[in-house]
């Protein structure tokens, strides 16, 4: 990769702090994101995926504290003053939430919502024109009449498109999307993800997509990272994912999805997803891993490169040398 990364995250950790009591939620995350690159973060409950986005944006709830360093375009995010942070939030990075209704003021019109921040710099007419342009870009016809409507008059899918339009208004360098389609029907999800993907590529924006759906992430991103119990366990190219998955957890995730195309024996991962606070000194996944050996209990595996991917597993070299279909079986 040439050029300076858009986003550099080093040793990002998030803890829940209550008096003297610290509970880990995210443990030591490091990665880079290039301009115009899309990264998918996939994980289940307790993986720390949503907290990662909040930490990068510095919008963590009061009880959570982040350590480590986050650099955007060469600037240290944690060192930013309040007004610089606000500017970054409004024009440098855009956020698409899972529930659009929670992020939109229900008593104001769509038009007000879209033009609010723009009106500080542009005239009302210019702001409205920009808003209309974005609404059409996300596939909303009759955009003029939509401006007069209130959020409750729009369906979930339509409202999410409005959110995307608002995210794109200021032409940010980075989009963060936290489960943007989880609450939508699958056909609407396809439409919305297609719009995000198309517009993002068109305008050269980077994206971090957080989702529980591994296939969805692989379809619209350049790289996918799998999180488990607050740690990054695997990262690699998206189009490599299905052929070359290496970490037992990622493998387990792929195997436990019920397939639409053929009825197969279900292969669940035993136990339940752990939280960072429940992890011992060894690997986060040791309690559920079919390939666990004694060193996995005592030593946390480092993230190492293997076959073009980054994997945190003591047995990764062994796994890489085996043919694909055997990796799900126990040793």
């Amino acid at each position: 990769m040439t050029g300076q990364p858009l986003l550099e995250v080093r040793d990002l950790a998030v803890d829940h702090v209550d008096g003297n009591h610290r509970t880990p939620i995210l443990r030591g995350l490091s990665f880079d994101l290039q301009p115009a690159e899309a990264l998918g973060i996939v994980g289940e409950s307790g993986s720390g995926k949503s907290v990662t986005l909040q930490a990068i944006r510095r919008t963590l709830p009061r009880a959570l504290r982040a350590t480590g360093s986050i650099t955007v375009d060469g600037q240290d995010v944690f060192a930013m003053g309040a007004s610089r942070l606000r500017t970054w939030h409004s024009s440098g990075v855009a956020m698409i939430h899972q529930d659009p209704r929670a992020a939109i003021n229900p008593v104001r019109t769509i038009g007000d919502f879209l033009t609010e921040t723009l009106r500080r710099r542009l005239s009302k007419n210019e702001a409205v024109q920009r808003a209309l342009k974005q609404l059409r870009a996300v596939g909303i016809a009759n955009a003029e009449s939509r401006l007069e409507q209130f959020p409750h008059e729009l369906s979930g899918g339509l409202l999410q498109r409005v959110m995307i339009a608002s995210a794109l208004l200021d032409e940010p360098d980075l989009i963060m999307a936290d489960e943007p389609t989880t609450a939508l029907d699958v056909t609407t999800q396809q439409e919305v993800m297609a719009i995000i993907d198309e517009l993002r590529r068109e305008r050269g924006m980077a994206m971090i997509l957080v989702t529980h759906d591994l296939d969805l992430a692989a379809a619209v991103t350049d790289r996918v990272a799998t999180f488990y119990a607050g740690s990054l366990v695997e990262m690699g190219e998206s189009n490599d994912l299905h052929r070359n998955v290496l970490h037992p957890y990622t493998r387990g995730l792929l195997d436990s999805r019920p397939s639409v195309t053929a009825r197969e024996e279900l292969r669940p991962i035993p136990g339940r997803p752990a939280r960072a606070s429940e992890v011992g000194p060894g690997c986060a996944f040791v309690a559920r891993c079919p390939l666990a050996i004694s060193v996995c209990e005592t030593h946390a595996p480092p993230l190492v490169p293997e076959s073009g991917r980054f994997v945190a597993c003591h047995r990764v070299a062994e796994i890489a040398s085996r043919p694909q279909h055997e990796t799900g079986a126990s040793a």
Partner: protein
Amino acid sequence: MTTMTMDGATVTGRSRRLSVRMFCLVFLAVLVAVAVLAPLLAPYPPEQQDVLSANLGRSGGHLLGTDALGRDLFSLIVYGARLSLIGPALVVAGATLLGVTLALTASWFGGRVDTVISRLCDVLMAFPSLLLAVLAVAVLGTGFGAPLIALTIAYAPFMTRAIRSIAIRERNLPYIEACQMAGFSVWRITTRHLLPNVRSLIVSQGSFMFGSAMVDLAALSFIGLGVQPPRTEWGLLMSQSRSALLNGQPLGTLVPGLLIVGVVIAVNLLGASLHKDKS
């Protein structure tokens, strides 16, 4: 393992609340003990008059002095605690029973039943509680009973209002439907499943209600429509000691008044701390 909450209900906040709660409980417990043990604690029978010792300040025989009729103030206050504390307790009990029943009925049946009950509550809440109490006294005569009945009816709608919306929310949750699927009777579902889930709100509402009831009852007795002599009650005492106040003997008005305020604050703090814990 400590529960992780991200809404400010931290461990340190909790321990502060516990000590406030402890303090209030102790204060109230002491007063209740005083009321119960009145015959043992009061140095004089409260109705014993001794005109020769009237309007004395604090002196050897009288911890807080005497009133215009020579009755020992300390004994009056100690015995007064009984009616002053029991009255609001009865009002809260009655209003809770009536109010919760109405709320659960409204939330369960919904529709027209809910509308009727809600409108009934609206009408009742439009009357100031004291006015209802005065009307009740006009009809039923003075004393302890009429104000109690009136205030119970006046306060019940407030409980209904508070409980109804939570009850409606809970009633529409799947676990209530699961109870229906299991074939449970409406009575069982309401008392064993709905009620426990609104219990904490009832308790906190009840505690706020106690304070209001206490003040209302004391006010009624103050204006002479509630507790009648020779029985004693703090509000009545304050009224009876008004002339003594003008003569430079404030204790008869001050001490019962402060006690009323103290109890109301203690009960409100208790209710607020319980409410915060459950949220």
